[in-house]
């Protein structure tokens, strides 16, 4: 018994020590960049120097922001960089000249969205559609896809990060819309997401038209809920706190389909292709675009040029196929407003419609009754953050 306790103590000690090891390493890494700052005039004069010094070994540290900084610092010293982006706050301009002087692009991406921005626990690298596009911008500016540092930008903090200058650009599964366009600058559209359906592999549901009388799960209070009630008024909607719970319920036989944005569904499909499949295509349209701080027009022009090059060279289709798994049906339009203009008209959910839908499925008592509440279809759609 005593020996056992000793063993546990030893294990804890080893764990703490290994944790400390990581902590010890970071301060030295973060102090490096400021030390490299002094000779900045040279850097302004010769931004091309940085492009001449690509370091292939850098890829290894890419996913861990602190390490990348440490790795990037030695290469920067030759061209010298005033890297004052993170600490200094709102006053910093992250426009093209400052980025070139720094020698690397700082991009905000998601770390938890499979297919788009995902920190792969096996390689400790962020990877995905968004990440590839951010690298394309780095290639455009520096001629080097590795002249980039990734920061995690979740939906709630990505716009503040741009405002504070913590990141230069965000590729963060962000839907471009008019409200956001007042706060930040949007690039060309690089992906058009949309609501779709996830069903068991052996299901005969082929699209939103087959959902009459079926049990469909989605998240409470999401735009997906509002949309599916409009597109499939005769379906029995079951609401969950998270999409993973809905998928588990479908796996257990309690649901016939789960609905939300296709990129989230593709993640589930990728995870267990033997169980689920995405069907029916998109029945809503959400244009994804990169964001920059408002007024950073030179940077925005570079981002747009990078995206345009990818679309024109066909590289965009390659990236699409790498992450989505199929060939793209069409290249997305340039302007995000066009996506909304081309979208099929959403049947508006008027209260009368909702009540008759409930009357039809009265036996489905509990959740269906919820539909009886007069839902101003537009209000939640505008207010709920899109993924």
């Amino acid at each position: 018994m005593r020996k056992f306790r000793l063993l546990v103590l030893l294990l804890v000690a080893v764990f703490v020590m290994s944790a400390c090891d990581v902590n010890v390493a970071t301060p030295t890494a973060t102090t490096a960049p400021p030390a490299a700052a002094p000779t900045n005039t040279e850097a302004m004069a010769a931004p091309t120097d940085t492009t001449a010094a690509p370091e292939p070994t850098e890829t290894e540290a890419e996913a861990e922001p602190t390490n990348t900084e440490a790795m990037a610092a030695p290469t920067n010293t030759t061209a010298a960089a005033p890297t004052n982006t993170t600490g200094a706050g709102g006053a910093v301009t992250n426009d093209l000249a400052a980025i070139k002087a720094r020698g690397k692009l700082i991009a905000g991406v998601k770390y938890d969205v499979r297919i788009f921005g995902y920190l792969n626990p096996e390689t400790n690298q962020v990877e995905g559609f968004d990440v590839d596009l951010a690298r394309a911008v780095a290639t455009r500016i520096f001629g080097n896809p590795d002249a980039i540092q990734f920061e995690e930008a979740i939906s709630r903090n990505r716009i503040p990060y741009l405002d504070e200058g913590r990141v230069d650009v965000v590729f963060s599964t962000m839907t471009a819309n008019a409200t956001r366009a007042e706060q930040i600058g949007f690039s060309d559209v690089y992906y058009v997401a949309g609501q779709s359906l996830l069903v068991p592999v052996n299901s005969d549901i082929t699209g939103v038209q087959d959902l009459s009388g079926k049990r469909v799960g989605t998240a409470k209070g999401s735009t997906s809920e509002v949309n599916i009630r409009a597109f499939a008024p005769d379906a029995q909607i079951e609401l969950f706190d998270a999409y993973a719970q809905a998928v588990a319920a479908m796996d257990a036989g309690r649901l016939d389909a789960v609905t939300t944005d296709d990129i989230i569904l593709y993640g589930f499909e990728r995870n267990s292709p033997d169980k689920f499949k995405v069907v029916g295509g998109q029945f809503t349209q959400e244009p994804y675009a990169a964001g920059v701080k408002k007024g950073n027009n030179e940077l925005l022009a570079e981002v747009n040029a990078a995206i345009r090059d990818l679309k024109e060279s066909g590289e965009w289709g390659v990236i699409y196929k790498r992450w989505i798994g199929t060939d793209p049906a069409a290249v997305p339009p340039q302007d995000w407003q066009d996506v909304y203009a081309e979208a099929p008209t959403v049947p508006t959910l008027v209260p009368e419609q909702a009540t008759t839908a409930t009357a039809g499925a009265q036996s489905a008592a509990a959740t269906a009754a919820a539909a009886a509440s007069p839902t101003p279809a537009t209000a939640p759609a505008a207010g709920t953050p899109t993924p």
Partner: protein
Amino acid sequence: MFGLTAENWELLFQGLLLTLWLTFASGLLSVALGIIVGIMRSAPIGLLRSIAAGYTELFRNIPLLTVLFFAYIYFGGRAGITLDAITTAIIALGVYTSAYVGEVIRAGLLTVSKGNIEAARSQGMSFMQSMRYVQLPQALRAAIPPLGTLIIALLKNTSLASTITVADLLFRADLVTDRTFNPDVLLIAGAMYVALTLPLGALVSVIERRWAILR
């Protein structure tokens, strides 16, 4: 009232009724199961005692949310039976709470004086007879205050059923919040829970006074 339309109030009241039904049904189930478990824990047969102890420890040491979700998944067709979400929630809540009720009953049985039990057995009563006519009536009376606490806790615990699509009061409150962006809805729902639990507490103390054991 409070910026909510009549439809939204109706939604909340429907949720309130479902919460009451969940509490009533799972409360009944938990007391019935709990008495069995309590008796088993004081039975003269070792095997029965171990089974009851295992049952108590199992459900007392697993979070209710886990029990609920497991039941929701398991009774969705995997076990060969499919129960709707409300029945699943009643069973899960009842079984979970019965572990606590069992302990309360056992504690009540321990308050019965040894002399009473010996007197009953020396009259020729069997274990079950002594339990039925002597021990249990006393034990149940002693158990009323803690049972009341458990039922109030159960009423609040029913809100967890909202995670398995049971449209109870909390579920409706969430829905109405999502629809109206009115942050006061949760406050209203909280007030509704209090409006249920306070009278329940009062009822328990009335019963307690009526059935008190005079020593």
